[in-house]
């Protein structure tokens, strides 16, 4: 393909760089640079091949966790860049909301502030995580379109980023929970060892939900407002502001409470923190819904992953 004229010019241009002139070029290859692996991207309709690529995507995200961490950190920092208090606003705004709503609703529901306020604080902080992950999950790919369209990157990085960012927010809000618990002498129960598996389940659910909602949100642009409305309704039918015990005598809540995945998810974290005994029913419901979520997300991700960049 190289004819005489162009190869001559090629040599000539190479000659222009004298050996000592080399300094402006890139340095020696870094020891930790990406190895020259062979990568084959083939159009394939076989599920096995697609599953393999989807697993590779997830594995690559696991290896890129420093990137996920830094992206999330920058997200939070960027949100409060130039503000005096910075990310402290997260803590402060939660504290203000809890104090205002707590006092008002304790009166409305005829509740004792000392028991209602710790309940409300932990409920609101946990719910904030769920609803923010759901709403930010729907845009996790559409917001990262510049990144997705400029380099090959595992797509699940963007879902992991939503989860990590909200874990950081949760970390700021937990301070308020700790303060309120100290103030009113609320103590986690003996069953609080279940908090660890509970939190791990939350992380897995949050990741799966972001991935699923993100894919749907990229393909169907109506998804973000739909999810926002659904989460709004869920906020009212889930015992967050109100305790199911308040309505137990009316007998109408059982169905809503027992079929509500958000209630089960909340309960496996909230119960042990408020010193309630282990609730096996809540765990069963939470695990069943989670399993369903993982299955659906897995199917959708394996199927839709190669098409995602075309949708942005």
């Amino acid at each position, binding site marked *: *393909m*190289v*004819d005489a*004229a*162009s*190869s001559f*010019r*090629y040599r*000539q*241009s*190479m000659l*222009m*760089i004298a050996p000592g*002139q*080399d300094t*402006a*070029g*890139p*340095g020696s*290859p*870094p020891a*930790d*640079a*990406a*190895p*020259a*692996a*062979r*990568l*084959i*991207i*083939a*159009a394939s309709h076989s599920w096995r091949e697609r599953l393999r690529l989807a697993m590779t995507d997830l594995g690559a995200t696991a*290896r*890129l966790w*420093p*990137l996920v961490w*830094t*992206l999330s950190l*920058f997200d939070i920092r*960027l949100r409060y*860049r130039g503000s005096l208090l910075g990310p402290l606003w997260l803590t402060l705004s939660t504290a203000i909301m809890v104090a205002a709503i707590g006092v008002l609703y304790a009166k409305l529901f005829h509740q004792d502030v000392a028991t209602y306020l710790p309940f409300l604080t932990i409920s609101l902080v946990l719910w904030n995580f769920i609803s923010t992950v759901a709403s930010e999950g729907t845009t996790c790919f559409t917001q990262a379109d*510049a*990144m*997705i*369209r*400029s*380099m*090959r*990157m595992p797509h699940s990085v963007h879902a992991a980023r939503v989860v990590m960012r909200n874990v950081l927010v949760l970390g700021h809000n937990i301070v308020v929970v700790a303060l309120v618990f100290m103030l009113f002498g609320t103590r986690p129960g003996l069953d609080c060892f279940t908090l660890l598996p509970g939190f791990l389940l939350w992380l897995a659910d949050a990741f799966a939900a972001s991935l699923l909602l993100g894919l749907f949100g990229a*393909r169907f642009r109506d998804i973000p407002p739909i999810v926002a409305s659904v989460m709004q309704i869920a906020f009212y039918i889930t015992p967050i502001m109100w305790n199911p015990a308040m309505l137990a005598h009316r007998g109408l809540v059982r169905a809503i409470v027992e079929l509500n995945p958000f209630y089960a998810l909340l309960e496996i974290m909230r119960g042990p923190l408020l010193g309630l005994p282990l609730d096996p029913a809540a765990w069963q419901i939470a695990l069943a819904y989670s399993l369903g979520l993982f299955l659906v997300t897995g199917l959708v991700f394996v199927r839709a992953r*190669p098409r995602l*960049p*075309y*949708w942005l």
Partner: protein
Amino acid sequence: MAQLIVDNVSVSFPLYHTEGRSLKKTVLAAASGRLGEDSRHRLTVEALRGVSFTLNSGDRLGFIGSNGAGKTTLLRTMAGIYEPVAGSITTEGAVTALLDPGQGMNPDLTGNENIRLRALFNGYSEAHIRKLQEDVAAFAGLDQFLALPVRTYSSGMVVRLGFAMATAILPQILLMDEWLLAGDASFLDKARHRLETMVRGAEILVLSSHRPDIILEWCNRLIWMENGMVKADGSPEEVLAAYLPPDQFAHALEAAGKAA
């Protein structure tokens, strides 16, 4: 040894947001048979159709063709961003794509923060990130600007940062769109120098450009894209002679001769 094999690659874009019938008919009539319908009657644009070629170390390939001929889509497909609908892409060696000046950078983050993200994406250690930041600062000549958000940069500065970042991580295969030309003359000299060092190290360069003089100067092979297909593939002189009107071709040869 770096290698890049493009084997019978086809790419088609679904058009989701044009459901209206009349619009569909208008578009169908206007576009010379490149619009089709897929099995579920969605409108699709066939951006690439059966493209094949193989590149080996030392190859410097250029793409030329009118707007919408599929050059940028082909670069994105070679970079692994769009996975092909048919065919396959095989790459051996680290690929870097310089497709748009923004480079997936977050304009609200500072230059240094964007460099850090890029380095983490490549799995660099903390010590290496600092070295990369210094290297990019020196090469792009942005020094104190790297502490400012990227959105405050001029477009030329963004180009310099993107180029410095992409080449400082030593890709074995570099895919470039023509925006590089937005740099000023002294930067172009530096960029050329760095690319030449890279290509001499037996790497692959793929460049898409509308400017014949750039193609003649940089490439030793040229592919002419038309309607998503390879129209001609050969030495830059051969292909340009067919692509350009004779007077423009003579002019381009002259311009390239001066530059070399």
